[in-house]
């Protein structure tokens, strides 16, 4: 009844003042995220930098913090990531090509699409359980590099598919029509016209997906367990550990020195992550400028 009158408050100065207060509140909220990031990075740099040296990169883990290093974990990460890239890129791009270029609009296609977006939301530890049951136990691979890489491949596959689809969708339809007009068949169109212009986008998406996998500890921990390794994996059937797990191992120790080692390990991990992200951004920028002209 009287509500319609209350809805309009004629005191403009007061309303503008409230607006100003809330502007400040929103600004503070933004600063919560930004400041947390700054505090986090400063804290890690202060703790970890004194422990960072060439020896830290080339030494194996040890009970004595002053000579402990991250070599086995770093090499393990490189092994697992290389294999993961090898598995996910062809399959992810293949699935994206099917969904964008071939798939008819029917129930099955819809099912595949819903399924992919749901897979992207499955907690990573569940992939770890899948990998443990499927690769380690049923296929009896054991706790090896290959099992870890396959598990991470399944984890990042939805991300690679979504990114590749976007890249393929961004290819102008005229390219396809032009190629068809020249008498190319479907595969020739994809190979000759679609993929070449989609590859930068696919690469960017893949690098970002892999940078997510590189920081994952939960799924790998179910596969590799918390091993104490003083060797570098020589082939995909060796035992392994990865950097996030080594960091987790150090964080879990009560002594302060190991916590600082964890910080040093985090610096190395973040440096690799930032390099990958920078690479993705550079690729994206080059691609964007090229498609404009």
């Amino acid at each position, binding site marked *: 009844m009287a509500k319609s009158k209350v809805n309009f408050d004629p005191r403009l100065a007061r309303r503008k003042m409230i607006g100003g207060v809330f502007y400040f509140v929103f600004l503070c909220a*933004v600063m919560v995220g*930004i400041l947390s990031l700054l505090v*986090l990075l400063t804290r890690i740099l202060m703790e970890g930098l004194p422990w960072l040296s060439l020896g830290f990169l080339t030494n194996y883990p040890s009970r004595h913090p002053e000579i402990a290093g991250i070599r086995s974990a770093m090499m393990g990460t490189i092994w697992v990531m290389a294999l993961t890239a090898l598995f996910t890129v062809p399959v992810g791009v293949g699935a994206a090509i099917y969904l964008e270029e071939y798939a008819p609009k029917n129930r099955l296609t819809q099912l595949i699409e819903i399924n992919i977006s749901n897979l992207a939301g499955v*907690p990573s530890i569940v992939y770890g359980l899948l990998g443990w049951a499927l690769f380690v136990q049923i296929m009896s691979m054991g706790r090896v590099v290959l099992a870890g890489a396959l598990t991470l491949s399944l984890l990042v596959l939805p991300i690679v598919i979504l990114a590749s689809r976007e890249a393929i969708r961004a290819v102008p339809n005229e390219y*396809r029509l032009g190629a068809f007009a020249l008498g190319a*068949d*479907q595969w020739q169109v994809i190979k000759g016209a679609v993929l070449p212009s989609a590859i930068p986008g696919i690469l960017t998406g893949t690098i970002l997906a892999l940078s997510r996998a590189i920081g994952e*500890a939960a799924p790998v921990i179910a596969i590799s367990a918390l091993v104490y390794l003083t060797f570098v994996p020589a082939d995909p059937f060796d035992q392994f550990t990865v950097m996030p797990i080594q960091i987790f191992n150090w*964080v879990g120790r009560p002594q302060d020195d190991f916590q600082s080692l964890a910080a040093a390990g*985090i610096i190395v991990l973040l440096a690799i992550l930032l390099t990958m992200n920078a690479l993705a951004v550079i690729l994206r920028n080059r691609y964007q400028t090229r498609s404009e002209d």
Partner: protein
Amino acid sequence: METTARGAATVRGDRAATGRFRRRRGASLESRVIWWVFFLCAMLSVLTTVAIVFSLLSQALSFFREVGVWEFISGTRWTPILKPRSYGVLPLVNGTLLVAFLAAIVALPVGLATAIFLAEYAPDKVRRIIKPALEVLAGVPTVVYGYFALTFVTPQLQRVFPDMIVFNALSAGIVMGIMIIPMVSSLSEDAMISVPRSLRQAAYALGATKLETSVKVVVPAALSGIVASFILAISRAIGETMLVTIAAGATPRMTANPLDSIQTMTAYIVQLALGEAAHGSLEYNTIFAVGLLLFVMTLCMNLLGYWVVRRWRQAY
């Protein structure tokens, strides 16, 4: 291969014409093989889901053969390793929801306010600085957040609560909240940006201030996307593993006190995965039962999120 001939969905608009053209030529063996390869790539994702459900269900079923489903779902004592053994999963669920609740208290208001600032207030220059910074925040590995919670946030909190033990739900919950801020803010911002300019102009024309336009017009118009971002962020918090394993403790208990040490479902799975539980033993199978529950909980929340977006979306 009829499907191959009809496969040219690419040439949208000219689809029927191309289909006729292709059918006349017939599909070569090579193109049929290629079609199958791509089709199988796409089907692999469906197979993954089937494999997840199968691997969780088969081991969980052998667990439920020895422990009743009702005892598992409703029991309030979780001591699967220590005698007397008891398999009530509620303490783990309690721990998970407590941390997710604390994370939500931090992330939902902060994330929404950040989204409002980015979508409605921030000039382009500021956005170009803040958005990449938030992306970095989202890309930090969760082990790093665990380290941060344990070695920085917990000592700070202990100054306020001197009795608080090292492993506690509060520290993990706060840091988890910080971790999911970017998820809430970026999804909510997307929803708010897609609200048409005409609605804002109409509000201004009626004499609304910037705040009134943002909060009373734009936010309600983008509500489905905002609610979905909340649901998906909480689902993420429920499934998060390393942060709670490092910082929240390993004490499954029924508590609402954030200063307590607790254990989440995910942290329990890691704890057991680290110990050498014999394959096929009852302890080994508990993690698949817990994993199945976790999978079902997050799946329901994700489906709810997508449903909210589809059901309530305003069409502009």
